[in-house]
């Protein structure tokens, strides 16, 4: 069995060159492990070895970001490692930012898996935790004894291509990806534990922190609706009978675009819903109850609106990931713009 090759990045302090007075030193590479690398070696159990250590001054890295990135990337490339580890940086701000920056660059530019470690309040954590796996450490180097085994364990997982566990299991900072895992207690017991802590004003950790949503400024109103082309978009899953594109009843992997040229009314013979999240009986009987084609056609004839766009766009909102919905909406928006649609009526069930 061949051992995996790792390149390790540390700063001047952990490289035993010096403290703040040596923070200006440029990156240099030494063969084999240095400083914390020796501790890593113990935990790799012969399965992986640190073939080179890059030592770099924190100030030099942050003050010469582009040059530093280029220099270190080149040093890493020369070694062709299987994995790159930076830090742990604990609560050292510039060191944390350097670790995050360089491990992100190694991952995206060289395609080499990377890993770092730092304290959750390190500014580097906020900047890079969603980009690079960042093992949670204590706020000072005293936490080295705990940080190294956690990082080594995750490193071996990455090297072997094993599934990364949830952040709570594998000890890294939440990276924006939700991963399932089995807790020790069932949910009801966890809820009671959490409630007791909340009641006695003790710190407790929610299993799902509430997100914050971004906002889009409202577009100006339509000046003259009698000249406007209006399109219908729906997340209610209305499709031609038989669901020709097989849009899923939940977690839709696609959206459909369907022509309604000459259609004045949606009937149960020709339209239905693919949506699995609500009682489909009403929509199957009359899909106008979800997308008002009948009324808008009538208004088009009466000249109350300029035109009803001849295509409608549909997907199933039920259990469909926000990122997917966003992607469909982007594509739909592109089509709407190319067809010179002025406004959209979007219906949801």
């Amino acid at each position, binding site marked *: 069995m061949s051992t995996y090759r790792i390149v390790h990045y540390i700063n001047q302090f952990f490289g035993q060159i010096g403290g703040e007075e040596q923070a200006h030193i440029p990156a240099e590479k030494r063969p084999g492990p240095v400083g914390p690398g020796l501790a890593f070696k113990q935990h790799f159990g012969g399965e992986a070895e640190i073939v080179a250590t890059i030592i770099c001054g924190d100030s030099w890295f942050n003050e010469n970001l582009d040059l530093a990135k280029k220099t270190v990337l080149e040093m890493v490339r020369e070694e062709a490692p299987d994995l790159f580890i930076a830090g742990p940086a604990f609560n050292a701000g510039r060191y944390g930012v350097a670790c995050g920056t360089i491990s992100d660059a190694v991952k995206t530019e060289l395609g080499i898996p990377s890993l770092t470690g730092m304290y959750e309040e390190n500014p580097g954590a906020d900047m890079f935790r969603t980009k690079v796996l960042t093992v949670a450490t204590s706020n000072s180097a005293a936490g080295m004894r705990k940080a190294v085994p956690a990082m080594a364990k995750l490193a071996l997982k990455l090297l072997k291509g094993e599934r990364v566990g949830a952040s709570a299991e594998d000890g890294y900072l939440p990276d924006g990806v939700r991963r399932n895992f089995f807790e020790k207690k069932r949910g009801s017991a966890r809820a009671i534990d959490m409630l007791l802590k909340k009641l006695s004003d003790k710190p407790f950790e929610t299993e799902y922190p509430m997100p914050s*949503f971004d906002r889009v*400024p409202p577009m100006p109103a339509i000046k003259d609706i009698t000249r406007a082309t209006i399109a219908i978009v729906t997340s209610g899953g209305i499709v031609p009978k038989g669901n020709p594109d097989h849009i899923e009843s939940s977690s839709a992997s696609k959206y459909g675009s369907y022509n309604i040229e000459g259609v004045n009314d949606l009937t149960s013979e020709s339209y239905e819903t693919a949506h699995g999240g609500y009682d489909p009986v009403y929509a199957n009987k009359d899909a106008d109850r979800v997308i008002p084609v009948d*009324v808008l056609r009538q208004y088009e004839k009466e000249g109350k609106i300029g035109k009803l766009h001849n295509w409608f766009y549909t997907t199933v909102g039920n259990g469909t990931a926000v990122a997917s919905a966003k992607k469909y*909406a982007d594509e739909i928006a592109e089509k709407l*713009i190319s067809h010179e649609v002025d406004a959209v009526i979007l219906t949801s069930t």
Partner: protein
Amino acid sequence: MVKEIERAGIPVVHICTVTPISLTVGANRIVPAVAIPHPLGNPELSPGDEYELRRKLVDKALRALMTEVDDQTVFDS
């Protein structure tokens, strides 16, 4: 979806039953609908009355599109 289409430059009116979700996700022009399985209909009404109900909702939606808003607005009257 509402947000992405609006972000692309087209005003959107969102007709939906659960307006709190619409407000949470960030629609700007919101018209409350009838019920989740039939947002623009009511199977308990006669076909004529049901069409009338839908027509009024569409009117409200068009009015929302014609109204300048600075912030998220629910058109519930």
